[in-house]
């Protein structure tokens, strides 16, 4: 009762990174709240799956294994979570802000009338005083996220409803093994107690999974472009620089919306979070949503015509000028100095 639950996604027998990141965060929240961390894994062919999550500090792993539970469809997974949450009454439930988490989370929150905050960039524990009602709430989950055009950061709370639910994008939290021999327990659930046959009415009849072609998250250098790059053609300069430096190309949401780069390259709150050793921001103004996805980069270079661009405040190097002039020079002097 009153524990922290993390819904873990599994694809082809492997627990998703985002779920392991949330278990890591969940472990530290559980320590702070002095409660247990519990994982839920729903799928098919889940033999020994607990070994992938217990080392992250899961005290209990609930497993429900049935051939019909993979690939994911909404109703059976939602039915399990809704009933399990009614039984176990978690205080906090976390899931990835992935196509699955974003499909499942709202469904469960609607059934339980519990609040759900999407795409949190930080989760903290804290108190809240409702002065009007004269009530003090202890140890709430602060669900922190940029809001409205990135000009503000909002602290969202669910004072009265449980579980307090939040989704978080992959890469936002750091994953870390707590103890390879952590003593976690397994609780196998009987599928028929949670899911009825009617729940399987929606059928996945075909799937084509593509390996991610673009690996921005793992790149040690990211060359990233914003709306200020000006055109898809100008974006080629970024690819040229990236090719020379062995970097990946990223983009701000504005650049993606403008059609300069593919959606897979979007960095920021609703895209990918990166922590490279060098981030080169080209023509990016630097709204909060974008900064949320790159501000932990070890070094940042900002190339912008606007000397007052907000991103410059994060940068270690600010180059003021036209990127079509600057990037070719960077390539030239990189080549000269590495000969």
């Amino acid at each position, binding site marked *: 009762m009153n524990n922290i639950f993390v819904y873990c996604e599994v694809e082809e027998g492997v627990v998703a990174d985002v779920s392991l990141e949330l278990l890591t965060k969940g472990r530290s929240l559980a320590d702070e709240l002095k409660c247990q961390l519990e994982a839920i894994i729903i799928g098919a062919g889940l033999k020994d799956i607990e070994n992938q999550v217990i080392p992250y500090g899961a005290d209990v792993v609930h497993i429900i294994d049935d051939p019909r539970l993979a690939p994911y469809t909404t109703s059976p997974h939602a039915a399990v979570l809704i009933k399990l949450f009614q039984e176990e009454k978690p205080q906090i439930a976390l899931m990835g802000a992935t196509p699955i988490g*974003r499909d499942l989370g709202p469904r469960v929150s*609607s059934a339980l009338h519990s609040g759900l905050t999407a795409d949190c960039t930080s989760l903290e524990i804290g108190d809240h005083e409702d002065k009007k009602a004269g009530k003090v709430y202890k140890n709430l989950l602060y669900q922190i996220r940029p809001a409205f055009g990135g000009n503000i950061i909002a602290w969202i709370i669910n004072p009265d409803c449980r579980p307090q639910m939040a989704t978080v994008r992959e890469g936002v939290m750091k994953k870390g093994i707590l103890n390879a021999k952590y003593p976690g327990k397994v609780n196998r659930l009987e599928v028929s107690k949670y899911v009825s046959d009617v729940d399987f009415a929606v059928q996945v009849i075909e799937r084509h999974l593509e390996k991610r072609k673009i690996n921005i998250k793992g790149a040690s250098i990211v060359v990233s472009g914003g709306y200020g790059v000006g055109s898809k053609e100008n974006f080629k300069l970024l690819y040229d620089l990236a090719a020379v430096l062995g970097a990946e190309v990223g983009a701000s949401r504005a650049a993606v919306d403008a059609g300069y780069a593919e959606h897979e390259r979007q960095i920021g709150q609703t895209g990918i979070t990166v922590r490279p050793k060098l981030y080169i921001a080209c023509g990016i103004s630097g709204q909060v949503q974008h900064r949320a996805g790159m501000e932990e980069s070890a070094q940042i270079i900002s190339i912008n015509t606007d000397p007052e661009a907000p991103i410059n405040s994060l940068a270690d190097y600010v180059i003021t*000028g036209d990127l079509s002039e600057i990037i070719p020079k960077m390539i030239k002097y990189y080549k000269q100095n590495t000969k």
Partner: protein
Amino acid sequence: MKGLRIIVLAKQVPDTRNVGKDAMKADGTVNRAVLPAIFNPEDLNALELALCVKDEIPGSTVTILTMGPGRAAEIIREGLYRGADGGVLLTDRAFAGSDTLATSYALSQAIKEMGEFDLIVAGRQAIDGDTAQVGPQVAEKLGLFQVTYVEAVLKVDKSKITVRRRLDNGVETVKAPLPLLLTVNSSAPDCRSRNAKLLMKYKHARTVTERQEATEDYLYLYDSRPFLNIHEMTVNEIKSEPDQLGLAGSPTKVKRIENVILQAKDAKRLTAADEGINDLMKELIDSHVIG
């Protein structure tokens, strides 16, 4: 053959994609007055998908449902110009301050008043919140199956539909029985443009409040042309528990809002001059950041 009855959920949103420097007031609140209000982009994809189903199954109808202030009737007219058959504006001060859950509750109660339906289609998410929650929450409240992230309808008849979903890591073909709720991605086809004939037909379509405020000479039209009436639904026309509406019905509360204040680092400043860029590249190579 009788067609499908389709409801499209749509939202009028501030155009956050083009937020200028004056978008925020000095006190940190949003200056909505300076932001253009638009038809949420993925809701236009949803409308197109609904219109395609209507093309496929003759006799189908498409009704737009939106919740918002009186001004949101604009997007219903926009939908009528593009091929929708009617619209409902759910508007009341009682809905103010709704989070996604209270919004879903109000919408689902309104849908219950709209008669039978076969398909509900919504955009995956609205650009002013990006939560993608309202579609699934409405589906749950109505006890419907849902399929999210849809980009195309592959096959549809009176009792079932086959769609293609676009996910981060690939595509899925999914078959589901009707009635059903779909949410539609921006990877779906763009919405067809306004149709000149429909524009002429519907340009005087108004809600009852708009008609009361109007000074124009067309008021005589509304009795003879019922299609010009945009149905305005208030809290009195839906069955609702007051504690499920608006701020009171919203489990999530905003505890605190902070303006973003940037503390500038002590950055090295350069221009496009050759010498500075040469030095920078040397420095990065020497410190093994690159190379």
